[in-house]
């Protein structure tokens, strides 16, 4: 790997310090900041498929939802009978001790990372042979089906939803819960970023790009495209599962279609954020998610009732004026800042051809 440049180092350490200080600086905004971290993770992992590999997936929400249910189920199931916890909409109340709570969520997150990854492998093996719109529609179906199925499984609360274990009451500090989930999501964000950055410097990314640009040619060159496609999706599933697990604990109540397999919101948002920032770039999804979240939190409540109209307008504006996203737009405007060298003579020669 190339040596991290000094300028980058300043940027990264600055961002990390800001990230660590944020819950203290903006104490009232902890939950929104946690959402932001999770949104960035979702956008970055979506970008691996949608941006780098050229496979527009709506199925990543499946792993997010799975992670959410798995974390909560493990956290409860380790110490109490899960069926009784969720029975009759969660009528019986069990209380986790502080140790149980943290042990549970730790193991739960581990499971939430592993199982979606395995499932991504299995599903990927079955459907990654589909291309273009067919793949998109197929994954769209996956998310919807998962929501309907989860809504029928009694042990995870079915239609009544699943109330996740409340934060231990022994911790009296009302801010502790917010901080805990923020730092958890921030750690996940850093992990995801480091991983994606590593991929960006590797041969793996070039293969994904080759698949995007011309899959048949890539195959003809001896690349086992199927293998790489599956591995790529498994990587996304790993982080989506974790993101879901954290969100489940933060929200405190899991509903099958509105919170877990929330394809209509989270599933669409992750695509939108990646495209807004610029798909196929490292920073694009980060910027896209941040802007989107600010737009949503800032303007949403000012235009009560019209927010989805505004969102629609935003989508149209992005697609029409920034089809390549903000990063793509910047790159076109200031190519030299992206390290692209323009041969002035060549450019002039082309102009003079007219």
């Amino acid at each position, binding site marked *: 790997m190339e040596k991290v*440049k000094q*300028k*980058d180092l*300043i*940027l990264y350490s*600055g*961002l990390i310090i*800001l990230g660590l200080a944020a819950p203290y*600086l*903006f*104490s*009232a*905004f*902890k*939950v*929104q900041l946690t*959402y932001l971290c999770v949104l960035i993770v979702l956008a970055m992992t979506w970008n691996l498929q949608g941006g780098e590999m050229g496979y527009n997936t709506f199925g990543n929400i499946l792993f997010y939802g799975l992670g959410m249910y798995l974390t909560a189920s493990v956290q409860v199931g380790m110490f109490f009978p899960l069926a009784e916890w969720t029975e*009759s*909409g*969660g*009528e*019986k*109340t069990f209380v986790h001790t502080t140790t149980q709570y943290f042990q549970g969520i730790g193991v739960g997150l581990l499971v939430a990372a592993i199982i979606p990854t395995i499932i991504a492998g299995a599903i990927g093996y079955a459907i990654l042979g589909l291309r273009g719109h067919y793949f998109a529609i197929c994954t769209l179906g996956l998310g919807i089906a998962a929501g*309907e199925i989860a*809504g*029928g499984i009694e042990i995870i609360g*079915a*239609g*009544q*939803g699943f*109330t996740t274990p*409340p*934060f231990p009451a022994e911790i009296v500090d*009302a801010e502790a*819960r917010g901080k805990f989930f923020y730092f958890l999501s921030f750690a996940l964000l850093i992990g995801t970023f480091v991983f994606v950055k590593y991929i960006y410097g590797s041969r793996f990314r070039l293969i994904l790009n080759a698949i995007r640009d011309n899959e048949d040619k890539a195959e003809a060159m001896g690349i086992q495209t199927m293998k790489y496609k599956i591995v790529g999706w498994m990587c996304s599933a790993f982080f989506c599962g974790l993101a879901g697990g954290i*969100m489940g604990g933060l*929200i*405190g*109540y899991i*509903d*099958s*279609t*509105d*919170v877990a397999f*929330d394809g209509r*919101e989270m599933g669409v948002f992750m695509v939108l954020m990646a495209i807004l920032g610029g798909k196929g770039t490292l*920073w694009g999804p980060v*910027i896209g998610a*941040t802007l989107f979240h*600010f737009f949503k939190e800032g303007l*949403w*409540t000012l235009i*009560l*009732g019209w*927010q*989805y109209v505004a969102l629609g307008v935003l989508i149209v504006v992005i697609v029409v004026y920034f089809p390549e996203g903000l990063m793509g737009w910047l790159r076109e405007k*200031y190519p030299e*800042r*992206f*390290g692209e060298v323009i041969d002035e003579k060549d450019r002039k020669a082309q102009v003079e051809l007219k």
Partner: protein
Amino acid sequence: MNKIAKLFVTFISAITLALVSFTSSFAKVEGEYIVLGSAISLTGKYSSNGVHTQNGYNMAVERINKMGGVEVQGKKYKFEIIYYDDESNPKRAAQLAERLIKQDGVHYMLGPYSSGLTKAIAPVTEKYKIPMVEANGASRSLFTKGYKYLFAVLSPANQYLEVAIDLAVEKNGGKGVKIAQAFEQDAFSQDVRLGILDAAKRTGSEIIIDDKLPKELNDMAATLAKVKAVKPDVLVVSGHTKGALTAIRQISEMKVDVPMLAMTHCDAAKLSKQHGKKSEFALCASQWHKNLSYKDKFFGSGKKYAKDFQKEFGYDPPYQSAESSAALLVFKDAFERANSFDRDAVRDALVDTEMQTFYGNIKFGPGGQNVAKPMILFQVRCKGDDCENRVVAPTKWASDKFYHPIPKWSERS
């Protein structure tokens, strides 16, 4: 790359500045206003009931403020509500509750619409010890969690249609009946289902169809086809407003004959207006009806409330609006008895609530549910094309006799 880096630094600092500049915190009581917060479904699948709820809140705020407001320590205060739209989504609702409390500095909350959203918000208000009086979260499991700051002016969901099963058994000469049921997959409707399961067990009735309906409910033909085939004694349907509308539309289209049809949300769906004669004989569970004889000094009687509401918003108030208005009356009463804005003092005052409102008596049980008010059943009855909801149970308030069985479609004009 370094210019990109600069760009980021600028970007980040801009965000930081923006954040710092809008971290302004309201006080719980601002000048002469007591600020309440509520996340409500203005868009999404619960939007119609969300609006009923909001109208109920607004009506009460206006009335209380006009009639002198809330008197605490000799000073008069007015109510004010900060609303956010939770988009009928529990995730959003929980986030907005956090926002109301942490960013807007709200110290007293009003509930959202629906059990699912209340389930999502209750842990948040509980964590910050914010008293919440809610009027639209009926799920039984809300009241078994040991929540100390949650108060519901309504009866729990499992009580909604239990009485209907009792009625059916009574009409069947005390023998168990065959029940067909279809419930939306959401917290509230599934709780209504639990009530039916209990009632069936108690009366020795048999459940022969037990279907689940999807959340975005607009078709239940599969269930109705089964109903046609197996001929149950009672058909029970619950799925908020859309459930009631869909059931009547398809039952009349498919000419499904069933002796008794029990539902929820008929008045919120304005069933008797929307479907007219097709909805006749439907039996509906309700928290409130304007003909009940409760009274208070703000709204007078239920009939008076209905008239004023009609004048203000142009439609007959469903019980969702009435119970929401009652929530404000409870808050006013609690503030005055606490004679303080201390959250725990207000909370303790809420625990001791015992009052009558136009909506019914209110007294909170240990879990926070209202134990002083029974559910009622009404039946849609028509005279010519003019249809109306008439109370048929409990007998104390019944204005009409329960009509049973429902005539076959071939005999209905």
